[in-house]
């Protein structure tokens, strides 16, 4: 079936089976590689995208269920030249090792900081509690979220 999707602010069309998980459509049909396949079970968070502003696991989200939703991927937040403040904070803290999980860390943190602009460390840990990292980058990721939560010039404030 032909599906119309709103991805990163653009109207996109994909010819896919209705039961296809959103992750495969984003990666294979729309050429977006920010969201990653990690488990296909919604357990690790590597595939996280924003759907209407909420962090959602795209590997267990049928594409047909999001055809009228606003979908944002890691690419939609910022670019290497103009990163989103959360992405910039991850760069500043060098909060990456292999980086495979980082999509989920950034996307989840963006939602956390929108809802709770100044989270406690415990709150950050809890919010990222279902995002797995095998390299052990956790302490840097926590620092990156804390850095992103610091007061910053208003020009950078918009998500």
């Amino acid at each position, binding site marked *: 079936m032909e599906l119309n999707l709103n991805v990163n602010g653009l109207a996109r069309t994909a010819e896919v089976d209705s039961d296809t998980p959103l992750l495969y459509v984003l990666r*294979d049909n729309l050429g977006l590689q920010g969201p990653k396949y990690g*488990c296909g*079970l919604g357990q690790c968070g590597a595939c996280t995208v924003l759907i209407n502003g909420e962090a959602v696991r795209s590997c267990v989200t049928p594409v047909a269920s999001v055809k009228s939703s606003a979908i944002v991927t890691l690419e939609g937040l910022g670019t290497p030249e103009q990163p989103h403040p959360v992405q910039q904070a991850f760069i500043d803290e060098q909060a*990456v*090792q292999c980086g495979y999980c980082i999509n989920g860390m950034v996307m989840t943190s963006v939602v956390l900081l929108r809802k709770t602009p100044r989270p406690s460390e415990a709150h950050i840990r809890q919010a990222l*509690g279902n995002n*797995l990292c*095998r390299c052990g980058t956790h302490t840097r990721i926590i620092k990156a979220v804390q850095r992103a939560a610091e007061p910053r010039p208003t020009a950078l404030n918009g998500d």
Partner: protein
Amino acid sequence: MKRRDFLQSGSGLVVSFSLLGTAGRAGAQGSTGTAAAAKSLLKGEVDAWLGIAADGRVTVYSGKVDLGTGTRTALAQLVAEELDVDFGQIDMVMGDTLLTIDQGQTAGSLTISNGGLTLRRAAACARQALLAAAAKRLPATAGELVVAHGVVSTRTGERKISYAALVEGQPLNIKLDPKIALKNPASHTVVGQSIPRVDIPAKVTGRFPYIHDFKLPGMLHARVVRPPGLGATLLSVDESSVSQIAGGVRVVRKQDFLAVVSSSEWAAVKAARTLQAQWTAAHTLPEQARLYEYWRHLPVGKDEPVIQTGDAVAALGTGAKRLKATFDFAPHTHGSMGPACAVADFKDGRCTIWSASQATHSLQSELATVLGIAKANIRLIYLDGAGCYGRNGHEDCSGDAALVSQLVGAPVRVQWMRADEHGWDPKSPPTLVDMEGALDAQGLPLAWRSEFFIAQARGTLDEFPLLAAVLSGVKRSGYYTGNLQKNAEVLYQFPHMKTEVHRLADTAFRTAHLRTPGRMQNTFANEAFFDEMAAAAGADPLQWRLTYLQEPRARAVLEDVARLSNWQSRPSPRTDQTGDVADGRATAELSRGRGVAFVKYDNDRTFVALVAEVEVNRRSGKVRVTEVWCSHDCGQLINPDGARNQIEGGIVQTISRTLLEELQFDRTHITSLDWTSYPILRFPEVPHIHISLINRPEQTAWGAGEMAATVVPAAISNAVFDATGVRLRSVPFLPAKVKAAASA
């Protein structure tokens, strides 16, 4: 004077870029500006290691790859330093078998010390030759010349010429002099700096090209369908069981190797789940509940030479206080966040494979056997994968992709599913260690005896039984990497010592190295038992280590971590907390304690001392690591923040392995196939980590990827003893084991 007068006459083999098509360029990790001219693959030639393009950009060719550890950045720093070019002028090509020298697999934390040293020398040779060439061209005497930013100039700046103008995009044609003098570390401006990693901006914005993101025109998607267990054979396949799946699915079989292929990835996923296949039964795995009994009684393949001082066996009998303990360490999985992925294109008797393998060069030989073609007709191009921490599923998956591409005659991408990675990546084997010790009447150490039961490594890496080989009927000699016996011997100097290592003919699992292989398991037993000896002597465990270690750098990390952690000198366990771990009625539910452990990695490089603080819930038996202090001396630091990142990661990952991780299996197959059945440490359980790097710029640059991880299990065990008086000798320290140990 001709511009290339300085070039010596070229010699030997020149390998052209003829195979380097469009896809090849995409795979060359963004290397730009390199003249697509002849590329030497002779390791004695500087051109094998680096080239300077007409635009002045420097391309470095490294056989070692960046496994997500930041070596792409650190190796570029080494070259920028010795060559005197700007760091940003360097492009790295890593692990492409057509373009890089085989420097051995990327393992053992040897990329900086071994791989980096060669690159430093190549860069220094290039700089020396370019200076000589500039002296002729300008002209000037060598003493008049200085180099900065890739430009050679007279000291006054009157005359100058760039490397690019000297080289004009041509090969350098100079020999690599292994005795070339490297820069005085005091003059370093790039080495020793925490230059931000070059890959991170692209990684956090979704632009970094992982192997999982690589595509070829006309590429098909495949999924493998594995037997219920190794040793099972395929009786029949019902292809009609997937005929209804939209998108079109083809079933591919070669003996017991089974896969489904489709132009749609989702169709391939569904087909792999749906396909009906009949297999014979296989019961090749040991019984999990009796793993160590099984392990102890495996046939011994060989015994390592016994290491001894004095007569430990006799001395044990004369000791005033005698200790005896057995330690075991569970088999673990690599647990990469991204299951393995590979893309292969078999065409006209040749095969190109894009792979995240840590060993692209030796994988050429492994794949040659799978495909039945010459190694020379196989090219592997490295693309980053998810962190692997040793040989995970990347190599097997590369074999799958190559074989399926050969069978279907089209470019093929194989993506392992989570259950494929958790179920089939080679595992780190279990380890069993018996320890005995004795103190004399004065409480001084008299004897130390250790006996290790470690999986044997047999054959060479080329003979590794890739799944695609074994399942498709290619006979392999059965090589599996075991664990290492390194660090079985301790550095403490006691009067009577004996270390025996039995190498077991491992038939339990498909095994491979996992971060800190062998040293972690061996050091766990040694450093935990040392702590038992210290406690029996009523001594402070950190001070006791200092008493029996001579080497200044060993003592320095212990003294440093004592300062860092505000170590209070006293014996363990602490006596100011009450309550019994097994007693749920204890008034104070939580006990806290601290433990220390030390290693000199492989007994010949990086020194680490680590203190862990733990909190033990006496009601539940749950152990939580709250703070970690680590003092780390890996000699000359190349990128201090990069080293810190690796140390932090090694600590967190090993806390996870120590507290939570244990492979689950029945007689047929691995049953821990996802993150629920194989849990790893999550954010709320991650401690605060405090690192002190001891930088020794004048010393050899050693690795930092595996070393801190080595001491984590023993430090935690020792801290739990300090908190509770309970010894944990079996990794992982699950709550049930903590409670059982307390009631024992």
